[in-house]
């Protein structure tokens, strides 16, 4: 795990340094495009101050040293605040969003998937399949834009952000939680819909494979009730694929939520990462990528453990 992370950190830093120019270039270009100007002397000074006049490997080594020995991820150029502070602010909401989406996805996909496999070619199966394909096919940002338009046109509501204006500054309270939930369902649905549709299809396909295996036949011959039979054996086997893909869910969701968050102006990590990359805010972007990679690796570990717990076959093979 540690070597993987190290390699990732090197690659991440290199990728961030690859585009032409640096933070100062993009800062100046940004101001210029707004019709503002910066003096060239100031530019030189900025570059010196941020250490951008040094070679990339020196910048990397300095960054790494500070992380390892001081737990200091550096400062954001754009915000002039410690990177960790900025990330923590947004990480909580991102995780809340990811968790809600996960719960939504699984709690919808599992029953619907099982249903449409068990009642293959029924009306319910066709409806679920139809909706599933639509869900996979529609790009999320488009869904977000359409929902925004509908909310504006018919409900006189602008659905951007995660809080109403009056709650943004307020401390956490019951009212704020309710307000959050009021706003949260839209991104949860948008983010969850593709994943849900996909999981329904996976569940259905896996379960259909299992349903025709001899052990099901045996169980049925032994007089087990259909419901008990279904959930005790084939569903458990079919869950395998479910769990093993779970590792991708968290980073995937954080990635996907970038586009949605930009469209809906959600205060999650996605837009901040995007902003950091566009402005070439190296330490902020680097810390983000490092964090996301760590999440993926931890996710893999957790899902491996879960898989071993769900599926005894894997456990035995490893011993």
């Amino acid at each position: 795990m540690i070597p993987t992370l190290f390699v990732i950190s090197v690659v991440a830093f290199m990728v961030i340094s690859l585009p032409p120019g640096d933070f100062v270039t993009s800062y100046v270009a940004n101001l210029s495009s707004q019709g503002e100007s910066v003096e060239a002397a100031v530019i030189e000074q900025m570059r010196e101050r941020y250490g951008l006049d040094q070679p990339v490997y020196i910048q990397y080594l300095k960054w790494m040293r500070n992380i390892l020995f001081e737990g200091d991820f550096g400062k954001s150029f754009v915000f002039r605040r410690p990177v960790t502070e900025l990330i923590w602010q947004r990480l909580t909401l991102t995780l809340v969003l990811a968790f809600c989406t996960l719960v939504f996805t699984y709690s919808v996909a599992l029953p619907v998937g099982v249903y449409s496999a068990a009642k293959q070619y029924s009306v319910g199966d066709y409806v679920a399949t139809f909706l599933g394909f639509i869900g996979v096919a529609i790009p999320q940002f488009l869904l977000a834009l359409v929902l925004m338009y509908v909310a504006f046109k018919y409900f006189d509501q602008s659905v951007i952000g995660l809080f109403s204006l009056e709650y943004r500054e307020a401390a956490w309270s019951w009212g704020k939680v309710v307000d959050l939930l009021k706003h949260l369902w839209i991104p949860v649905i948008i983010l969850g819909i593709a994943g849900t549709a996909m999981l329904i299809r996976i569940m259905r396909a896996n379960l259909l494979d299992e349903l025709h295996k001899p052990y099901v036949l045996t169980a049925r011959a032994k007089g087990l009730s259909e419901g008990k039979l279904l959930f005790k054996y084939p569903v458990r086997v079919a869950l395998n694929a479910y769990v093993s893909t779970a590792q991708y869910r968290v980073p995937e969701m954080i990635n996907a939520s970038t586009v949605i968050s930009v469209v809906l102006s959600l205060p999650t990590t996605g837009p901040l990462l995007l902003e950091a990359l566009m402005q070439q805010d190296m330490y902020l972007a680097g810390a983000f990528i490092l964090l996301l990679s760590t999440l993926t690796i931890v996710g893999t570990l957790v899902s491996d453990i879960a898989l071993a717990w769900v599926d005894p076959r894997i456990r035995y093979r490893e011993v």
Partner: protein
Amino acid sequence: MFCSKKSSVLSRVTIVMILVCLLPMASVAGAAPPAQGESYTVQADDSLWLVAEKYLGNGAAYPAVMDATNKKAAEDATFATIVDAGLIQPGWKLWIPSAEEASAFMATYKAYNEAPMLAELVATGELPPVEERLPENPMVIEVVDRIGVYGGDWNTAMQAAADYAWVVRTFGYEHLVRWNPEWTAIVPNVAESYEINEDATEFTFHLRKGMKWSDGVPFTADDILFWYEAWITNDELLPSKPFWMMPGGELGVVEKVDDYTVKFKFAVPHGLFLQRLATPDGYEMLVMPKHYLGQFHADYNPEGVEALAEEGGYANWQEMFQDRMVWEDRFEDPDRPCLYAWDVSTSIVEGTSLLVAKRNPYYWKVDPEGNQLPYLDRFVSVVAEDAEGMVLMGLNGAIDMQDRRIATADNKAVFADNMEKGNYHFFETVPAEMNQAMIALNLTHPDPVKQEIFRNKDFRSGLSHAINRQEIIDVIFVGQGEPWQGAPLPSTAWYNEQLAKQYTEYDVDLANEYLDKVLPDKDAEGFRLGPDGKRFTFSIEVCDRYPKQVDVLELVRLQWQEVGIDMQVKFEERALLYERKDANEHDAVVWAGDGGGLDSMLELRWYMPFNNESNYATPWGYYYAGAVGGIEPYPPAGEDELEQNALKQWELYDQLGASSDPAEQTELMKQIMEIAADQFYVIGICTLGPGYGIVRNDFHNVPESMPLSWLYPHPAPTNPEQYFKE
């Protein structure tokens, strides 16, 4: 409903008119004024106003009666003490002052009003009274339509975090001097007056006595001196100085004459100093509260500074102080006192996706009736990640007044459709930008062959004649705009028709005639051949953020094919484009035509090699701006006519900077424009149509039209502190 609203407006106007009529009489004695002053006993149904009217001939002079009575009461307990002018009891003994006393009192008397939220704080003793908070001579702001009422938020939106230009444009524009709302002149602001010596080397500014920072600490000459001593002259913190403090290459000197007078002295005449101060460049010396920022500077807080730096995670105090001096810090640190109408209380970096600024109780401006400004309680800006979200807010009526980011030409139709629903209307913005797209061929191209061809004026003239500008205007800019080269707009005194209009006529034959003089041979496909016998090809680089410019170039590419020119459009990311043109690696670049209004005296990038944005000669531009670019900057060698003329223009502009006489400055600008017209450095397409912004129907005192520019950071010069909601 509508009628009643109208009548209430009418009655308000009537009251105002009556008051205005009365005011001149305030110090004039009435029909039967007492010669020496006399006592008077209050009758039933009396009021101070009636008493003053009866004895002084003017009800508005009642504060004189109140003051005189209270003074008498201090000596003679039989007189009443009046606390509330609206509450007097029958039987109270008043003292009517003589006409002279009354008029003398009224001449100095100023009744200031304040927002209810501040009056409450005064009542509980948390704030001193408004008279003590205002300077002796507050700045009086003319209202656009009418006197406003207090209260309400100004709701706006900004895109992503780094959009502080919008804050500068709304309330971050309090400089020593400022542009007047019409953008025709410079008027005093923080300085109540100023003097310039004859040769424009000394500028004396008189500050407002009793003016205070937003935390109540007096603002004096020491704060400006703090900026100069702690920052400007500190070579360690600021190795290179702002160019507008360095006319003739020598740093100006700032002196404190007394607590309320500062003097700027320069070695050579600095004719454009006041103009510079009126642009957004002039903010810095007025955001330096010594009592607050001093703690971050070793000269002012030698014991505590290192501990503060460590706490803030800085390597040393210098880094910390430099961080405080970044231009956005004033909007990010809620503790930092300011001179603005609204003081930031919730900053964006706190992760709320919101910027909130609250009424500054010490704001030093009043309306003509003595109401302390601003009218609006708060400035609130929602941080949206995407412009579309901001547009939706506007359509929903969630934005009170704004044009930035949302008021694009493409959005105009959708904004127009939803006017009723969103309860807003449009105001007009008049762009100071003079061109949609400036095609700048690189006249300092490193390849000598290309350089020679690009420098040939016939080549550029031919290309210009080959552009069908009307087609571009109709297809891309929905008919808005006029064919235009890179020239200041007719509203400027140095407008040059030749520069604006030459070679704009669409004429393929003429274009071919010009081009034949430069590249007569063509290949089988009809494309012109270079001197080496191969097809002459060049590319124009365009930034991917400006799709309109890409569209323009696509049309131009097709139109140039007709005359045998093979041009390629190169679409690239902004940072890459800057990197390439800074390194002088580009064939040609297209960019918008900044600097067409009054700002063209300060921003001449399209009229002479002026700075790194003079895309047709970036090394020269860098050299003239005294800056360091991607390559070593160099001046024109003076070898050909083009180079000699560029040098001549530099000379003229240096003279302009050394002059303090506006007539002479105008004359010099005219000469510079004449040379620009002869040289024809760069090819323009067309002017911009008028822009627009949205303002809610219940949001008032926004002018119907205002200039649009960065150097006139609209709408700030139109005094947003007098905007109000009703």
